[in-house]
């Protein structure tokens, strides 16, 4: 049976440096997809993903092997992507004070979409993702493309779980608006 990510990470922490390549192999495709969808510019995606792995290696001793490896490396990726967006749009602030994280929300917890709704959302997502603000684009990518649950997304973005729900709901509404707008012109 294949070793889990956490077991491989533990081995690397213990000195098996060459096994870090296994973690790179397991995550490079996922992180490249995350980078392309979030940054919307495939040009520097490869360099950024490479930097993510280097950062992950440098900080691997801070990883607690009793927890899941995936949210940990995605958190590093999120930070790198946000920095890249800030650099790229140096005159615009990518993330300002986020009022969604200030107050508690009565948003329902992680609810599974119906198969039809999920299929529709995925289709709309592919077409209109680039029109959304990064703040709303990112939870959509993590939820629909990376199959993360609310709690994992909250751990990656360092926001309350209820805020994840609020952002996803708003992002879906924005996607629907975009899709309707397009249908009207077709």
């Amino acid at each position, binding site marked *: 049976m294949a070793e889990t990510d956490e077991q491989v990470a533990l081995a690397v922490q213990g000195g098996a*440096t*060459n096994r*870090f390549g296994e973690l790179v192999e397991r995550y*490079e495709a996922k992180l490249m997809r995350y980078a392309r969808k979030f940054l919307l510019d495939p040009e520097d995606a490869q360099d950024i993903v490479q930097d993510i*792995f280097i950062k992950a290696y440098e900080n691997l001793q801070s990883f607690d092997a009793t927890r899941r490896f995936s949210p940990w490396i995605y958190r590093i990726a999120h930070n790198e992507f946000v920095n890249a967006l800030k650099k790229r749009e140096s005159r615009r602030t990518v993330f300002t004070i986020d009022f969604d994280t200030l107050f508690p929300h009565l948003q329902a917890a992680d609810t599974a979409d119906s198969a039809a709704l999920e299929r529709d959302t995925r289709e709309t997502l592919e077409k209109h993702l680039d029109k959304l603000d990064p703040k709303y684009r990112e939870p959509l990518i993590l939820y629909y493309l990376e199959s993360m649950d609310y709690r994992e997304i909250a751990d990656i973005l*360092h926001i*309350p779980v209820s805020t994840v729900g609020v952002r996803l709901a708003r992002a879906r509404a924005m996607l629907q608006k975009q899709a309707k707008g397009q249908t009207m012109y077709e």
Partner: protein
Amino acid sequence: MSDDIRDKVMLMIEKRGVMMRPRWHFILLSALAAAGALILIVALLYVISLAFFFLREGGMLYTPAFGGRGWFELLRSAPLLLIVLVAIFALILEILVRRYSFAYRAPLTMSLGGILLLVFVGGFVLAQTSFHRSMEFAAHRGHLPPPVGFLYGQTFRPPRPDDMHRGVIITQSTGGFVMVDADGDGTSTVELTPQTRLPYGEDFAPGDMVIVIGDPVGTDTIRAFGVRTMENRPDTQ
């Protein structure tokens, strides 16, 4: 392309000296953050309890018993400098703990509110002890190092409103009493009227320290809006 990333990363690790930071580096960082958070919690407790101590000592903490005007007196004598210090410490504390899941999983207002509620309750409890009175005593005798001693000077002490008086009753009559001002401003005659608010009744007697809200009538007379006793202090009796 996939192999490209893997090869480049492994090349940088194996040949170009990219190093894994040792575990103690992260343990040290966590320990420093925890120590910083602990120091800030103690500082918050200290500052909040000092604010309660000043308000109680100055008599302002007793005024809400007089109703709306009493609450207004308390609000306008709020120790602003100490409140600013509390806000700064609480913000730094929030930033320090924000990277931990217990902090970021809760909305900012709830985690910050939770921190403030805890230190407020703790500060209030600490203010009920003799800690600050002993510290003030030591500060006045120059037994405390300057930064701590400075806290007990006039800079951080909230100003008492002009219509608020504090003193020890020396004689009592049917229409009021005469008191010696606790701040050494001589004696004042306090006039009680049927409208005077006495939240705990006329339960004062010569020797009691009282707080009086009222406007001056003539030179040494105060027409009382409200009167109540204060906790007697050994050094003012």
